[in-house]
Structure formats: C-alpha cells, structure tokens
C-alpha cells in the first residue's frame, strides 16, 4: 500500500498517475472477483474434497480488500488519524517504555503479544461442525469485528497518553465500566490459564516423548536466563538462537527418552500428576525473578512461534493439500462429541481468537500505543496485526481439516462420549459416518511416536498430527514422529509462556486490589504478599485445571466455552468503551463500526450463556448436568470412587453456571451504562467529558521512520 508515499505528485506526472490509477482499480476488481470466486467455491463445494489453496486465496482476497478499503475508510473518515500529531511515544520519550519505534518493529512486538495458542485451538475444536462455519466466521469476524476493535482501541489509547482499557473505561464510562474491565480481565486470565494448562496436560498424558521435551524446556529457559544475565548480559538474539538449538535438541532427545527403558517410566505419567506438575511449575514461575524463567522462555517462544507459523504457511502453499472434512457435519444439530451445542451460537463462542478477541484490547491499549511513532501506523499495526492473527487461525483450521474426519474425531472425542476402548471408539465414530479403523489409528500413533492417539482432547494433538503431516511431506519425509513432537513443543512453549505471564499479571492485579484493603499486601516486593497472592491465583486456575483433568468428558468441553464467553465479554466491554467515545465525540453516524460487532457479540454471548445455564441437554446445560449427576449418586448406581469425583463435578458445574451468569450480567451492565451515557449526551445532559489529550505537533518529521535506528 503506497498511497501516502507520494504526497508531492505534480502536474507533469498526473497523466501517468491517472493511468496508474486505472490499473490499480482494475487490480482491485480482479482481487474482488477472485475472492468472491474462492469464497463461493468454499461455501458451495459439496464434492469429496476441496483444495486448501481455495482457503488461502479466499482469505488473502478478503483481508486485502478489507484492509485496503474498510480500514482506510475508518482511518480517514471516522477516526481521522492525524500524522502531524505527536504520539505519546514522542511526547513522553523516556528511552524505556515510551519510545518512538519503527512501524514494522512495533508490528512485530504487537503481533508477538496478541498471537498466542488461542487461534490454533479454537478453530481446531470448531471443525467438528465442518470446515465452513469456522472459515466464514474467522474471515468475517476478523475484518468487521476483531480488526476494528484492535485498531479503534489502539487509536483511543494513543489519543489518551497510552492509557489502559481499564483506565479508559473508568474515565469515559464511569467507575462501573472501570470495575467491570478490571474484574473481567482477572477472571478471563484465570480461565484462560486453566484451559491452556488442560490442553497441555492432555498433550503430555502418557506420552513420555512429549513430557520429556516439554520438561526440558524449563532447564533450557533457566540456562538462557543465566546466560543473558551473567555470561552475555542482554544479548537476547544470541541467547535466543542458542536456546532454539537446545530446544530442537530437546525434541530429538525426547525420542531417546521414549526408547530408554530406564527413563521412559519416569516421564510416562497420567493426567493428575501432570496437572500437579503444571500447578507447582506455575507457582514457581510466578514467584521466581522474571529474568530466570519467564523472560528467557518468552524469547524462545517468540522465536519458535514466528518460525513455525511461517513454516506452516509455506508448507500449506507448497503442498496445497486436499481438505477431507465436509463443509458441514451432522453435528451442527448440537450433538457434537468435542463440545455440545448447536452451530449457533457455539461456533462463535468456540472461535474467539482469530475472529474477535477481547484480550487484544489489553495489548492495543496501554502497551503498543507507547511505541507508536506516528498515528498513521495504527492502521497497519492495529488492523493489520489482527489480519495476520486471523490468517494463523485459517492455517490451523486447514491443518485440522486435512486429516481424515474419522481420525480427527478419534483424536478429539473424549472417552466419556465414544467409549474408553479403541474398538468402541471406532465403532461409534464410524457409525456417525466418519469411517476409521483401529489399525489406522494404531499405525498413525506408531508413526508419530505415541502409544495411542485416542481421546487426546484439547486440540493440540490433532493440530500436531496435521502439522506433522504437512511438515514431513514438505520438508523431510519419514520424520513424522520428530515433526509431531516439534509441533507439541511449539504449542507447549507458548502455552507455558502465557501461563507464566498470566499468573504474574493476575498476581499484580490481585495485589493492586488487596493493597486498598491493607497496604502491605499491595507491595509487589514484599515476599509474604507475593507468596500469598501468587498462591491465590495459582489455586484459582489450578482448581479448574484439576476438575478438567478428573472429568471423564475431558474438561475442555466445559472450560473452552467458558473461556470463549469471558473473552467475548471483554471484547464487548472494549467495544462499549469505543462506541461510547465515538458517540460522545460526535461520530454517531459512524458509530456502527463498533456498535454492530458489539450487538452481534451481545447476541451470541447471551444466547450461549442462556443455553449453558438452562439447556436440558446434559452436554450443554451446566445445571442439568449437575442435577443428572446428583440423581445418579442418589440412585446408588455409582461406584464410591465415581461418586467422589461426581460430587466435585457437581460443585464445579454449579460454579460454572454462576460464573456464566456473572459474565452476562457484567456484559449487560456495561452495555446499558454505555447506552445510558450516550442517550444523556445526545440529549445534551452532562456525561463524563472526553479525556483526549490536546493536540501537540510532531517534530519527528516525515523521514523519521526511514532514518531512525
């Protein structure tokens, strides 16, 4: 996009540029036709298979059209980005957190921050409905919802000295909005960490190779931490490359552990011991100094993340595999094995990251705006960053759909639904119309170096099988088992990075809150408080993780929708803040850019929450499930051990119902508060004033970005 790089077009070249304009117009018409063809092809295909290249073409066309036209329109006609205005980075430049930075460097930082495991897991799970619903929601949700949210919040935060979403909510909506944003952030963090921990545990369960590789990432991170502090202080590129080599070695080394009769039993663990290990690890990661474990792990995860995503995209383009999953499966009726619930609204809850993710608003405010050198960078970074994350979600969806549907369901269906034995699982799945055999699953498990692939719920293993299939055909055949465990390691490093960082932030938020009650608890360097608050946060997510592991239905079917609902609730808070500001600043006519996605989120979140609470289907309704278990216990048909577990599950189901009600209440309180303020403003009554900082001219100059170091 070069439209603003030639401001000084003079009369002599106007003939040429008019011709140029015609070509460009023709080019965009072609992109539109190509995109329409690809989307139509995907939507209407009812044949045996469809090629993955169609998905790539459709995605690239939709993204480029939306970026070129919609984001430009928002930037120039609604937000009125002003490139002559000094950004917070310029005005408060302190060489540390406020630093004007080149736009592509900021893009890198921003993308590394927003893209976590979410866009890989959600689309993988949503494939139970077929490839079509997930694809359409990822494309449409991103360009009309997620990208707009990220860009608009980034703009408003930039105009407000880089303030956080919570601060903006308090300033612009009032104390209610501020409190909602704060509590919402803490809750979503806890549920996110629990569900990610569960995904990780399910990937390591009875897999000595995966467990050994993931375990090895801890000493590697500590070594790099010491290296970056004492041996070569602050040389992070060097340290990261060294760490990457060690990580690759750990992937191969895990295979040796798998072969060793001595070490194998040590790493061959069930779900519960692994869950405890993750909990203990999370506690230590939160209380140890950041340089020792958290920071070096994050450098490694950023390297691995960007590298693997690029490899995945290249592999898909080179191989352009056929998609085997049908466009729609029978499970759109709500009987799906991976999670219960109809296509509407559950596909929109299952895929949050990749379409619209409220969590991004926390990065887009407070963090990224402090680096922006110029307001015009908000469009490529805010809108463009989310476009790229959405593309990652599409590649994850492709990796899941190129598996045989039977294999996909065999890996992802919990034993509680399809039966614990291999024979009963393949019988059930084949009966659904997705043929699969025990031999097929056994030979696949053998090829990827696992003892079994049945009931590996959570999405990570099936994504790893898909990625390993792609990588081994594209970059080296016969290494399926190494590629599989590379993919598991790749998912594990950034799950653990999110877990470490999330626990730590949760601790700070709790300390901040408790400091109001008793000042010493708020001191972030007072060890008793650090231990206490870290313990509380770890116990909170550890509880959900524990329940997820003992749940015979896999736990993901409960936790993932809860995560989706909480994430969409946070998005609704962010969009309410944005809509409120748009209306207060006299942009009522254009406020639909955020009000429309907000309305859609309110509809899907409320519908999903309603079903999760009142549905009479035990696989959807929390309360029905709790009551049905209670009846089973009362009837005395359960073994004492099963009844023990059932009691815990009952409590958890009721707690989840309460949480869901809480999320929906917060959602509506914020929306109604925003509507009340907007109506007051339109009637000319007093509202909290806009907190935009006054204009001050930028002195960085037009050539700054090119010349800056």
């Amino acid at each position: 996009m070069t439209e603003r790089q030639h401001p000084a077009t003079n009369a002599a070249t106007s003939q040429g540029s008019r011709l140029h304009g015609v070509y460009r117009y023709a080019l965009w018409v072609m992109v539109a036709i190509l995109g329409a063809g690809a989307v139509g092809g995907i939507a209407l295909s009812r044949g045996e298979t469809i090629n993955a290249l169609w998905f790539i073409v459709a995605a690239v066309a939709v993204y480029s059209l939306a970026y070129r036209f919609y984001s430009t329109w928002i930037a120039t006609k609604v937000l009125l980005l002003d490139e002559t205005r000094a950004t917070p980075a310029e005005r408060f430049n302190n060489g540390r957190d406020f630093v004007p930075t080149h736009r592509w460097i900021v893009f890198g930082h921003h993308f590394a921050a927003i893209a976590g495991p979410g866009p890989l897991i959600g689309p993988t799970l949503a494939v139970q409905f077929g490839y079509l619903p997930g694809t359409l929601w990822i494309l449409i949700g991103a360009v009309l919802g997620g990208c707009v949210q990220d860009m608009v919040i980034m703009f408003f935060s930039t105009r407000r000295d880089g303030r956080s979403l919570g601060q903006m909510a308090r300033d612009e909506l009032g104390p209610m909005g501020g409190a909602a944003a704060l509590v919402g952030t803490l809750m979503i963090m806890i549920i996110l960490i629990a569900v990610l921990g569960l995904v990780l545990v399910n990937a390591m369960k009875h897999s000595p190779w995966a467990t050994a590789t993931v375990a090895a990432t801890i000493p590697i991170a500590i070594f790099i931490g010491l290296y970056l502090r004492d041996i070569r202080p602050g040389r992070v590129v060097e340290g990261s490359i060294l760490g990457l080599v060690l990580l690759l070695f750990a992937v191969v080394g895990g295979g040796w552990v798998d072969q060793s009769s001595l070490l194998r039993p040590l790493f061959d663990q069930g779900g519960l011991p692994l869950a405890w290990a993750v909990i203990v690890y999370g506690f230590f990661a939160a209380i140890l100094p950041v340089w020792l474990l958290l920071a070096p792990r994050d450098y490694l995860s950023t390297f691995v993340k960007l590298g693997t995503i690029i490899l995945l995209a290249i592999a898909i383009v080179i191989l352009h595999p056929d998609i085997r999953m049908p466009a729609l499966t029978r499970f759109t009726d709500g009987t799906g094995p991976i999670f219960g619930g109809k296509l509407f609204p559950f596909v929109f809850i299952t895929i949050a990251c990749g379409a619209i993710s409220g969590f991004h608003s926390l990065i887009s405010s407070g963090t990224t705006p402090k680096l922006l050198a110029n307001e015009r960078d908000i469009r490529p970074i805010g809108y463009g960053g989310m476009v790229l994350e959405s593309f990652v979600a599409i590649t994850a969806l492709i990796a899941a759909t190129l598996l045989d549907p039977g294999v996909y369901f065999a890996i992802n269906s919990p034993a509680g639904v399809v039966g614990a034995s291999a024979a009963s699982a393949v019988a059930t799945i084949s009966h659904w119309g997705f043929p699969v055999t025990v031999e097929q699953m056994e030979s696949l498990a053998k090829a990827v170096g696992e003892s079994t692939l049945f009931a590996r719920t959570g999405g990570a293993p099936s994504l790893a099988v898909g990625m390993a299939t792609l990588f081994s055909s594209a970059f080296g055949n016969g290494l399926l088992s190494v590629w599989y465990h590379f993919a598991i390691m790749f998912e594990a490093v950034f799950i653990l990075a999110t877990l470490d960082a999330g626990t730590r932030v949760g601790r700070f938020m709790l300390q901040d809150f408790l400091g109001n009650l008793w000042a010493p608890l708020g001191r972030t360097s007072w060890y008793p408080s650090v231990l206490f608050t870290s313990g509380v946060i770890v116990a909170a997510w550890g509880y959900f993780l524990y329940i997820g592991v003992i749940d015979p239905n896999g736990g993901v079917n409960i936790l993932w929708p809860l995560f989706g609902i909480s994430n969409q609730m946070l998005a609704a808070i962010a969009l309410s803040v944005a809509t409120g500001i748009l209306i207060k600043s006299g942009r009522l006519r254009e406020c639909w850019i955020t009000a429309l996605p907000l309305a859609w989120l309110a509809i899907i979140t409320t519908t999903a929450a309603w079903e999760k609470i009142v549905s009479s289907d035990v696989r959807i309704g929390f309360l029905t499930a709790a009551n049905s278990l209670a009846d089973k216990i009362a009837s005395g048909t359960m073994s004492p051990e099963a009844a023990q577990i059932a009691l815990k599950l009952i409590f958890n189901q009721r707690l989840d119902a309460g949480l869901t009600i809480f999320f929906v209440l917060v959602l509506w309180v914020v929306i109604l508060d925003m509507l009340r303020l907007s109506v007051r403003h339109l009637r000319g009554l007093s509202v909290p004033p806009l907190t935009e900082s006054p204009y001050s001219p930028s002195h960085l100059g037009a050539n700054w970005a090119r010349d800056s170091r």
Partner: protein
Amino acid sequence: MIQTIRNGWRRVRALMSDDGYARYLRHHAAAHENTTPLSRREFYLREQERKWSGIRRCC
C-alpha cells in the same frame, strides 16, 4: 547487498529489543548528561522487571 544484510540484522535486533541498551545510552546521553548510566546488566534486569509487570502476552 551488505547494506541490506546490515539493515536486516538491525531490524532483527530491534524486533528482539537486543538494541535496547544502546538506545538507552543514547537517550541517557541526551537527557541526563550529568549522571552515570546503568551498566548493561543492570539495565537488562530492570527492563525485564518493567516489561513483565503488565499484560504482555495474550491468548
């Protein structure tokens, strides 16, 4: 060609914040002439502490 490689390397370093210390020294020289800047090690540790006090990673 060499210029391109050099630019690329600079971008990678900036992307990883590898150049943070040099940037800090430049800022320090310009804004706080009369004080001694932090050592590379002190700066690195303090930066990590600051960086990981807020929300830096997402889902």
